[in-house]
């Protein structure tokens, strides 16, 4: 009996050690991944049933839903930079991220208790998005500070893969509950709250607040220092490249709308487009991260961006079969896997330790502004000259952005290694 117990006790850490030595992912990153997974299950459960809940149970018109949907997306924008700098300044990344996760968890509790009016749901959704805005930059800074500089891309790949598992599971859990208990949205909200609370608990109980690369005690960074990151010689080229690339990339939402116009398939297949892209992303995020740590983040990032040419190519085809569609969706997932997380990893390598969250907050804001410009421009071009010409122009812009950003990114990477 004693022996069995002992060998079990020995075996467990060894297996764990082997596993983690192969992937070489710090425990803190796994734990932050678990926090994101649980929180995403919680959020996506609510997001999945929200339209149906608003319309079926609260009798909202779809137009009201549109307005709430807008709040949903707009609320997080500027909060990122502020929360990033604040967490650097206080050296409290875990605590600031905790406030963000806590707000979202509170929002879920409020859905159970006060989500029975349309205005109430709107306010709760806005709070949830603010929570997301608050937590993202300090959380990414924690991932970065928990990892050695040459393993950053793997860490972000693991985190993003876990995050997307949560986003996939959320709708499944929600549908599962509604299948067992038809039209009982309260059950969905209760279970969603429990997932959010668990996520927060894993953060509080299992995430190390002072990881290996955490800056040593010294004078807290000043706002001036955070703001001057935008002209810092290694970070500025990265920001410019990120802005250019995001402007030249058509958003996935518009790609799906475009595919719907060009492909003649059963409309019931349509929701599967997102699922296939998400599966491709989930499967590729970790290997692509490892590849980026081995051969360099910049080449992988540029290759990932170039995958968009495949997607644009499919949009230009006059008739698209299922094979071309599959290629397009796998390429789209690969593009996501090789860009957002790898870019954040590159920023983590370039940024000074004491300003990680500030810099990442600025990067996220720049990229989301770039995406907004891209969506508006693509919509306007589509209207003016048609889908195919718009795609051609964006392909040309992407080629230009790649050519211009490659030297900038390589310079940023070189400076990161030297510094």
């Amino acid at each position, binding site marked *: 009996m004693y022996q069995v117990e002992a060998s079990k006790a020995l075996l467990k850490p060894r297996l764990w050690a082997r596993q983690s030595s192969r992937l070489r992912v710090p425990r803190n990153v796994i*734990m932050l991944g678990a926090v994101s997974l649980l929180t995403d299950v919680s959020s996506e459960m609510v*997001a*999945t049933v929200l*339209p*149906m809940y608003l*319309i*079926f149970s609260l*009798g909202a*018109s*779809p*137009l009201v*839903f*549109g*307005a709430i*949907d*807008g709040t949903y997306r707009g609320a997080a924008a500027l909060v990122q930079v502020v929360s990033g700098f604040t967490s650097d300044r206080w050296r409290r990344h875990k605590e600031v991220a905790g406030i963000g996760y806590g707000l979202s968890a509170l929002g879920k509790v409020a859905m159970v208790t006060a989500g029975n009016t349309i205005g109430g749901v709107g306010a709760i959704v806005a709070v949830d998005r603010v929570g997301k805005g608050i937590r993202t930059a300090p959380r990414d800074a924690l991932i970065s500070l928990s990892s050695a500089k040459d393993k950053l891309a793997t860490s972000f790949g693991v985190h993003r893969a876990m995050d997307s598992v949560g986003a996939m599971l*959320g*709708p499944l859990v929600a*549908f599962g*509950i*509604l*299948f*067992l*208990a*038809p*039209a*009982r949205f*309260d*059950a969905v909200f*209760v*279970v969603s709250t*429990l*997932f959010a*609370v*668990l996520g927060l*608990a894993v953060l509080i*109980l*299992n995430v190390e607040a002072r990881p290996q690369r955490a800056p040593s005690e010294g004078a807290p960074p000043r706002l001036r220092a955070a703001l001057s990151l935008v002209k810092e010689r290694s970070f500025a080229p990265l920001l410019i490249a990120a802005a250019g690339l995001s402007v030249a990339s058509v*958003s996935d*939402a*518009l790609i*799906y*709308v475009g595919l*719907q*116009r060009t492909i*003649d398939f*059963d*409309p*019931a297949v*349509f*929701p599967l487009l*997102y*699922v296939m*892209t*998400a599966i491709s992303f989930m499967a590729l995020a970790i290997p692509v991260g490892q590849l980026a740590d081995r051969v360099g983040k910049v080449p992988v990032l540029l290759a990932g961006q170039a995958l968009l040419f495949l997607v644009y190519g499919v949009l230009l085809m006059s008739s698209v079969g299922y094979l071309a569609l599959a290629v397009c969706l796998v390429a789209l997932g690969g593009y996501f896997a090789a860009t957002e997380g790898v870019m954040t990893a590159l920023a983590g390598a370039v940024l000074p330790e004491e300003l990680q969250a500030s810099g990442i907050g600025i990067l996220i804001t720049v990229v989301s502004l770039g995406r907004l410009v891209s*969506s508006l421009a*693509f*919509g306007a071009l*589509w*209207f003016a000259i048609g889908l195919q010409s718009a795609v051609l122009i964006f392909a040309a812009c992407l080629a230009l952005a790649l050519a211009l950003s490659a030297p900038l990114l390589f310079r940023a990477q070189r400076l990161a290694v030297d510094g």
Partner: protein
Amino acid sequence: MDSRGGKITVALVVACVLLGGGYVVYAALGPSQTTTDASPTAGEASGVPVMVRAVDPAKPTLNGRVFVVEDGKVVRRLPDLACERVYYAAGRGICMGVAASGVDYDATVFDSESRKLNEITLLGLPSRARVSADGRYGAMTVFVNGDSYLSSPTAFSTRTTLLEMKNGEQLGQLEQFTVTKDGEPFDAVDFNFWGVTFSPTDSNTFYATLATGDHHYLVEGDIEARSLRVLRDGVECPSLSPDGRQIAFKSRIGEENRWHVHVLDVATLKDQPVAEQRSVDDQVEWLDDQTLVYSDGTNVYTVPADGSGEEQLLIKDATSPVRLEAGSGA
């Protein structure tokens, strides 16, 4: 990491699984309703039989049973049908509503004996349903829910699907048709289509609304050619009169989501309002070539098409009015 944190986490996971599982079981055993057994009440007598879907005023989003009202009396309830939108013509009908699971929406294509010919899972909330007068084609519009994996490019969107009514199979979506305006190709990312009405004499021809930007265009469609042509602006939810000469439609009041019902002359494309002063959000139906019939969400009213008179309550606690041909067998 310290094992205390790990142990508390495990304990919390167990507690959450028990709590969550328990609540789901409790909810599964509790009441869950997707269909109401409410009945409509007939008001004024009219010479034309009308099919409607019943509404429970306290719970208007539940599926309602389908009834036929004639001469101021509720004459029949169709067996096995319950939905939010119904339409019927020449032995073929569409019934769109919440699926039995309560998770999503579906549409039933049925025949004159209320037998199910096909069941179609809808991509969103039922909005409009129509069947051509010869029973050959059907059209369904739904509001599409934003999918959780994507941010929708527009505030809300609609999707309109055409059906072959003999077997209920889908013929495609209007979003896939080519559009021309003033003879030129016309396309934009925010195209939304809704409110199909079929020509009473040639079911291959139909009219619908194309929304883009601030515009709501009346378009004329050709099913076989899979094409659409813009006719004029400011027309939502068109509905052709039985003689095909007039189109009743919703005319938007300012920027708000409020509408007056207008009637348009197909030959001249000129329109005038009817006497109904309240906002109406419905695809109007024609009782005959002189009379409109529509719902305000809870009751069914009639109003003269020529702008004279005033509205009259036809049926209480019902929506989705459908004119039936006398002796049509529905």
